[in-house]
């Protein structure tokens, strides 16, 4: 009897949270799933009937029909794969480096540096994107800097050439002719475009602050005695960092990489502000494609299907990463 009353009270206390989660998390997700099964053009209420129900047609068009939609989706996945491959390791490494630097007790003005490094993370991504547009314009600061070293910089946001393309030169014929999932093999391997690289630099710079904070918190939680023991055993600075600190920070690294992976797959605002997927669709991301299909073409069903597919993709990749890190066991 008492137990039942306790559990009742428990539910009562969690009700506000549950209602909020249901209203702002569960309902939109269910609604998105529902819309992805409709041929909805956004002109009437999707719940009131009168909107054609098409079952899995939107998913079929997206994944199995060779056409513009699948080409666009494959392109966006290709772009994001490169994005993840470059951005996640870079932001993790940078965040760790910054955290170690500002954790140094001998560093003067630590608070100042912590604030400075964290600043990009709290600034509006739209504002930062606009600043980057100026930095990376043809006559911008980045090209000015490059000119000091005698390098003639590209017009960053108008350059669709892939980085590997630039390194390797012209593609062999067979790579152009072999098509995998609507894109030629060459399209898959030619690397992130010059324009995308600029977006990657931006994202690495803005996110490293937040991740630095996580590393910093973890660093300050490390047991001092382990480090001291290593010191007494005669370990060098580098050895202590590699053999003691890094293994102890493993859970944090996992967290940072997972969060990084998820957020890079969802890149939207930078693309929306800076490039709208241009040049030659090399900065198109799945999130932006979903938006473009939904609000540009009025194909909200397709847009929702892209979003749901993207969610599935992120879940699979996160799971794979968990397995790789060995966190899944035990």
């Amino acid at each position, binding site marked *: 009897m008492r137990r039942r009353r306790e559990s009742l009270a428990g539910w009562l206390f969690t009700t506000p949270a549950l209602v909020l989660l249901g209203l702002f998390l569960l309902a939109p997700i269910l609604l998105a799933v529902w819309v992805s099964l409709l041929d909805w053009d956004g002109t009437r*209420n999707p719940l009131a009937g009168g909107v054609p129900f098409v079952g899995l047609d939107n998913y079929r068009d997206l994944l199995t029909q060779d056409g513009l939609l699948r080409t666009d989706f494959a392109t966006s996945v290709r772009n994001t794969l490169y994005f993840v491959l470059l951005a996640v390791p870079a932001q993790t490494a940078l965040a760790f480096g910054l955290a170690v630097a500002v954790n140094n007790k001998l560093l003067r003005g630590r608070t100042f540096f912590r604030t400075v490094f964290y600043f990009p993370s709290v600034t509006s991504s739209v504002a930062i994107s606009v600043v980057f547009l100026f930095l990376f314009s043809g006559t911008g600061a980045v090209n000015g800097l490059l000119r000091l070293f005698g390098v003639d910089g590209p017009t960053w946001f108008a350059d669709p050439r892939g980085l590997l393309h630039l390194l390797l030169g012209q593609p062999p014929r067979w790579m152009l002719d072999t098509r995998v999932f609507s894109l030629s093999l060459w399209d898959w391997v030619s690397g992130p475009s010059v324009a995308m690289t600029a977006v990657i630099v931006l994202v690495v710079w803005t996110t490293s602050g937040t991740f630095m904070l996580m590393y910093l918190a973890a660093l300050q939680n490390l047991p001092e005695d382990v480090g001291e023991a290593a010191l007494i055993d005669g370990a060098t600075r580098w050895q202590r960092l590699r053999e003691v600190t890094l293994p102890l920070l493993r859970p944090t690294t996992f967290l940072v990489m997972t969060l990084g992976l998820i957020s890079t797959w969802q890149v939207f605002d930078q693309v929306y502000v800076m490039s709208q997927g241009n040049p030659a669709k090399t900065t198109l991301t799945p999130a932006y494609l979903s938006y473009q299909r939904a609000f540009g073409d*009025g194909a909200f069903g397709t847009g929702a299907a892209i979003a749901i597919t993207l969610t599935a993709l992120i879940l699979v990749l996160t799971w794979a990463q968990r397995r790789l890190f060995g966190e899944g066991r035990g």
Partner: protein
Amino acid sequence: MRTRRSAAMTAAALALTALAGCGQGFDSNQAAASGPVSLSVLIGSSGDAETQAVRAATGAWADRTHNSVNLTLAQDAKQQLSQAFAGGTPPDLFYLDPAMFARLAKSGSLDSYAAALPDPDGFYATLRQTFTANGKVVCAPKDFSTLALVIDTDAWAQAGLTEADTPTTWDQLAAVATRLTTPQRKGLALSDTHDRVGAFLVQACGWYLSQDGRTATADSPENLTALRYLQKLLTSGSTAFAKQVDAGWGGEAFGKGRAAMTIEGNWMIGALAKDYPDRHWKAVELPAGPAGRGTLSFTNCWGIPANSPHRAQAEQLVAALTDPAQQTALAKATGTLPSRTSAATAFVAEHPEQKPFLAGAEHARGPVTATGFDSVLSDFDSGLLGLSTGGDPEQLLKTLQRNASQALGK
């Protein structure tokens, strides 16, 4: 099977309605309101001048008829309208762009009022065509713009060119573009989008769709002629896309002196006066291609939702706003052309700089309104840049043809 599916749908819909607390749909027919009403008007304004002019015009109407008007400025008109329609609370009157027009007209969400306006045939034919669905003109075109060739007169004189050299054919355009090219400056710069390049297609008698808009005609020899010509311009070094000279659009390339000519619309007049007042320029009609003259027109209409309770009042307001005198006043503020022929002729007499743009109205082609074409044409755009580096125009048109057919087939 069918009943089970619809039962499941109803259940899901009910569950979601309960969860999301969604309001009643906008599908239920509402009675027309009588007496003084408050009209909500959503506009995507080009700037302060336009906002003030629309506010003054709607305010005058409201005072006269004892209604009130609540003007809202859209940040992203397409998105805001979609949200409003989906949520069942569309504004009573709004700027409607052609791409979204097709979507709303297809689902019967628009009030088809154009025929009831005073002098409904007084609007330019190309604009009425743009806002026609199922053989009926649905809404009234607000105003319009066309493309013309804008020339830097100082660069023109420096290159030793005279009035007589004004290009009227493709060959002449290529020739003057070469003459005007210097190491620091291109002869011609334009944006790499179908909204500019499409004019070349029209001049070659090509287009993306057949006359009735039912079949894709992208990979026609006419279109290929146009793209080949464009590619020749680009590879000759006399012409570049705006991006390639580090400018956001043709007007910026022109204003910053990186190009001596550009292909842009009426909005250039205002933009040059505001951002580059020192540049001396003139506009001329686009040169004729093998099939004669051709340009593109851009327009919005005054949209009214079919089920708005304030339909009657909104229609009255549109009648007032599209009155020739009122159109002239609005055109002055927005730098666009009045959509009524009578108003436009009077307007141009007063504003001679608008003349070459108005001349284009005779042979202008409106935008494609087929649903799903936004993505198809933006895919085409993404291939245009490649033309300057040896991209194959035939391949580009083939891809466009495939995508266009697929979009039409849906």
